């Protein structure tokens, strides 16, 4: 029972981390909470669902389609909605409010065009559970966990090892200086949104399989936002650790206490963190010496 809960908690945490990464990437560069990210995740889930159910294509193709589709939607989002504000050097509050508007708009577009149905993914992972030390572990949980950790680790390597990744980290500290070094900021911001969208698409498919696909599923990103705050907004390792902590906490509370008060625990944790450690576990404390 304990092991099963642990794996379930970690897999939910992994999905939270996938979503939180998108928030953190955007926050680290533009310093605002991109509340439209949840709707991008939702749209990614729809894309994945329709590829697999309407076109009868395989699961890997649906995953790739969702990743590419969500990445492109995120790019469209920044080009159409945020770029005019960024170019005018608007305060980040304006960007956040615009993001909320984009989110409401897209969600209602889905209501109007696709309706409020709940779509369930066809069975992809076999129901039969893996037996492991006497516990039942679902293949879905296991693959969600593996996928999220591997892809986030790949992103980490990209940010640490490549020139472009270094430029993203540099710009997250000082955009003006990065442009002095020859970084085309418009393009870099586009790349950051592509990455965030791709991770959103991945998260969307796993969320859709685990729960269902419906217009307001994007609101579950509230949890990812909590994960990002716990870990420290703008920090990638923070997003992962925050996601895993939250996933474990929720699952253990559901199993050992009661699932109805699960959210009380997660939201209390945010409050506690904001009071005691406002920058999160791995938030930025770096100060330049003058």
């Amino acid at each position, binding site marked *: 029972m304990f092991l099963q809960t642990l794996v379930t908690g970690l897999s939910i945490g992994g999905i939270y981390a996938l979503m939180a990464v998108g928030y953190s990437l955007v926050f680290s560069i533009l310093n605002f909470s991109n509340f439209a990210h949840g709707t991008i995740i939702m749209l990614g889930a729809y894309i994945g669902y329709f590829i697999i159910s309407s076109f009868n294509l395989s699961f890997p193709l649906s995953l790739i389609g969702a990743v590419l589709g969500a990445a492109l939607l995120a790019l469209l989002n920044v080009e159409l909605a945020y770029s005019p504000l960024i170019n005018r050097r608007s305060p980040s509050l304006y960007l956040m409010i615009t993001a909320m508007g984009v989110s409401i708009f897209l969600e209602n577009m889905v209501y109007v065009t696709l309706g409020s149905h709940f779509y369930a993914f066809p069975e992809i992972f076999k129901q039969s559970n893996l037996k492991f030390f006497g516990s039942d572990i679902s293949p879905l949980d296991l693959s969600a966990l593996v996928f999220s950790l591997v892809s986030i680790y790949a992103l980490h390597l990209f940010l640490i090892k490549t020139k472009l990744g270094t430029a993203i980290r540099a710009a997250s500290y000082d955009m003006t200086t*990065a442009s002095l*070094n*020859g970084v*085309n900021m418009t393009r870099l911001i586009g790349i950051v949104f592509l990455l965030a969208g791709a991770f959103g698409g991945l998260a969307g498919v796993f969320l859709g399989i685990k729960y269902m696909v419906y217009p307001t599923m994007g609101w579950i990103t509230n949890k990812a936002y909590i994960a990002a705050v716990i870990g420290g907004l703008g920090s990638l390792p923070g997003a992962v650790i925050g996601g895993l902590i939250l996933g474990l906490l929720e699952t253990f509370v559901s199993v050992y206490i009661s699932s109805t008060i699960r959210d009380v625990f997660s939201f209390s944790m945010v409050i506690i963190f904001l009071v005691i450690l406002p920058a999160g576990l791995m938030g930025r404390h*770096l100060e330049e*010496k003058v």
Partner: protein
Amino acid sequence: MLKVKDLNVFYGRIHALKDVSIEVDEGEIVTIVGANGAGKSTLMWTLAGVLKGKSGSIIYRDKPHPTVAHEAAAGGIVLVPERRRLYANLTVRENLMMGAFLRKDIEAIKKDLEYIYSLFPILKERTTQYAGTLSGGEQQMAAIARGLMSRPKILLLDEPSLGLSPIYTAEVFNTILEINAQNTTILLAEQNAKKALEIADRAYVLETGRVVLSGSGKDLLQDPAVQEAYLGVRHKAI
């Protein structure tokens, strides 16, 4: 190489540069001297493509000057900004490599990195340290080094001696001479007028956004007005 003519720049509602005209020839060290708020940094940011002029022209190598920062950098105009502005969250080496962001010649980058480590041995020791942990003087070295990694055609240095001890200040000025000897044109904005004029081929004095004096570095050092305003020499009896 660089010709600025009747440049007017506004900083919000403030008219920061008023009909400024300066010229920098290939291989020169040109110094801009002026007090706080005279417009030195505004001029530097405009030349680097971050700020935009309202009127006037900037001609760089016989072409209109690129008005976007990353294009200016690609054209070889490299600014080492005031207060260094290193990436505190990156290591010293990563900071230096950001200077080479636009370059693709991997072998030459390696060579340049070696050259920079020979120029500033302290940076080699600190190569894996976060730039935020360096002392002020070391940060200035790193900032100049990052600028050099871009292989600039013209290096704009904004107040490189700001907040440095006399020893570091001397080192910075020696480095500037050495860089210039390697055929890099230098435009230097400084409050430390004496040192800056001593190494300058030519110089301009900027006061509240206007060029009020210009001439060779030596001439300006001898100029009574400059001596009184910037060098602490008194000519009149009290």
